[in-house]
């Protein structure tokens, strides 16, 4: 069982790493959000693994997973809202240009 737990946690760590890379390296707001989604997905795996293997009778763990999923969705809703507004006013959602144009 420990092996499964460690596989799951390593998956979570890898997803976190990929997400972090994406969030830092991408220039576009929407792509950055994809990175953030991956980071949150990493957190999700860890939470599920912890609940399943360590505290299967504490359902606050599952509740926490639901909350993370909600956060993922809301992050997208608000993020896209910002993207639409930015694009409407600037014609771009590139972060570098956000810096330049805000000046």
């Amino acid at each position, binding site marked *: 069982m420990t092996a499964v737990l460690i596989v799951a946690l390593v998956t979570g760590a890898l997803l976190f790493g990929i997400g972090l890379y994406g969030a830092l390296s991408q*220039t576009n707001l929407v792509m950055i959000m994809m990175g953030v989604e991956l980071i949150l997905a990493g957190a999700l795996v860890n939470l599920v693994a912890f609940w399943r293997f360590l505290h299967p009778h504490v359902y606050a763990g599952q509740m926490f997973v639901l909350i993370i999923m909600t956060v993922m969705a809301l992050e997208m809703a608000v993020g896209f809202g910002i993207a*639409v507004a930015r*694009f*409407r006013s*600037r*014609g*771009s*959602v*590139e972060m*570098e*240009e956000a810096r*330049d*144009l805000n*000046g």
Partner: protein
Amino acid sequence: MISGARAYTDNGVRRWLARAMARDLGTLVVPGLEIARLHGLDVGAAGLRSVASPRHASVLLVVGALPPALCQAAAVLYAQMMRPRIVLALGDEPLSPLPSADIRLGLSQRELLEGVRQLRVLLADGAFQTTAIDFEPAILSTRTEYTCPMHADVIRDEPGTCPRCGMTLIPREAQHDDHTGMDHAAMGHGQPEHKESTDHAHAEAHVRPESTDEDHAGMDHAAMSHGQPEHKDSAEHAHADKQHGDDHSDDHGQMNHDDMDMDFMSMVEVTRDLPRGSDGLQMDWLEVPFGPLFPGLPGGLTLTLTLDGDNVARAQASAPVGIEQARLTEPDEVATFVERISQTDRLAPLAYRLLVYRALENAANAVLDANSIRGRVGALERERICSHLGWLAQFGQQIGFGWLARRAAVLQLAARNADVRKLQQLRPQLVALTQRLQRTPLLKQRLRGIGVLMDDGGLRGPVARAAGAYDDLRLQEPAYQDLNFETVVRPHGDALERLRIRLAELTNSAMLIDAVGVIDASSTFAHMEAFHHLSGSGQASIETPRGAASLQMTLDQGRVISARLDTPSTRHLPRVASLIEQCELGDALTAVASLDLSPWEVMQ
């Protein structure tokens, strides 16, 4: 045996598959189902399944003669069909650049049935053959050119990088210079910069009528940058500075344009010149052809829509199959002229034949007896019924209303050659159809407020009457006045009103035929000799199913030396562009279909 067979030996399994293929005949009808119905062809009853995409078809059914533009379009469709594919041509006309027809028969339902029978035999036996010939006409050959994915106006013959943004140019095909009359060829070779800039400026002005000074600056800028791609950098920087009052953007821009291999490109610059959609977002626009052989529109009508998402940002409508003014004015014998006019509009041949005869009779000051006049009224009204039913069938297909498409087609085929008694029997069915449509859920919501055209004197026929105009030549004709004819007029001018006008006219025309009691036009056409040495000029107009058409002609010793024809679709076609701009795609197509345009009668 079949030119579109697959090149494989015909072993056991393939033979079985070929037999199955002979039972499932997906068909593309060229120029369209509406033309097939006008010739009394019931494609469905013959066992052919009409499909929308050439990928799903194995039979190309050619009905009658094809103008050159449609021949080419049909060749493109044929090239996109999957093998085994087969051409069934009804009528004795040349098809080039299509391969010669695998089966060629006359233009009647009986021969269509025979054709389908032969076709099944041919497919079952010859779907797989040891050899096959490639179909490669000149219009399909291409050359490769290179374009920047962000700047559509940058086009080079060699691979490389974009001079404006430094991105790798991507290959795309372009048609060879063979002036096919299609827009793409022109786009690739002509002066795309100028076309683009004017179009953009126009679009911007249209989309944002309350444009401010800044917007005008933007338009000028767009024109400038597109017109002179090599020298645009300085202008663009100056503009950027003015707009944002920001030193950074200048530095940034310098970096962009001086170093060709920069690692970052500015999206602001890419999007700035683009026109804004109605919600202020600047998206890429996509030019999509709908026609000349689009399943939801009459064959020959070509819409080129520039789509902003699924909104129509700009539209161009043309009818490459229309009447050429040059051919009309060509001096000719009366007899051939009559044939030419009455064959040009394939959707209302009788009305145009009557029109020419009236003009001739007016020129000769001939007087018709009352019986002939009544016979003509009957024939004209029967054609109106058929035309409206044909429109209903096509409209039903376009709005995805399967029942309507079938029911109207069945009625049209029944009414096509019906005599007075037969039409009397059909009348309850016409009334039932009308009532059924009035009760259909979703239909009102689908059509109300779509394609609003208000009357300004330029509309004709049902389209004008749906917009509240008493535009009906029949009101002035004594023959109709004797019958106490009253025309139907409705106020709002949208697609729903046009539907209602045509439905009301179906029953009205049936009642008129009932009142005149005779349908007979052909006997009044017999005396062609009377015009053989006629000189002078004649003018006539007639209320065709689509509205008033008029003809003015001058004759000299039995030869037509000049003629001027005015047709309703010629007046309606230019309205299409402004009618559907900023409409959703489906609404736009519904609006166009509701006009009942006949591409054949459009004057070029």
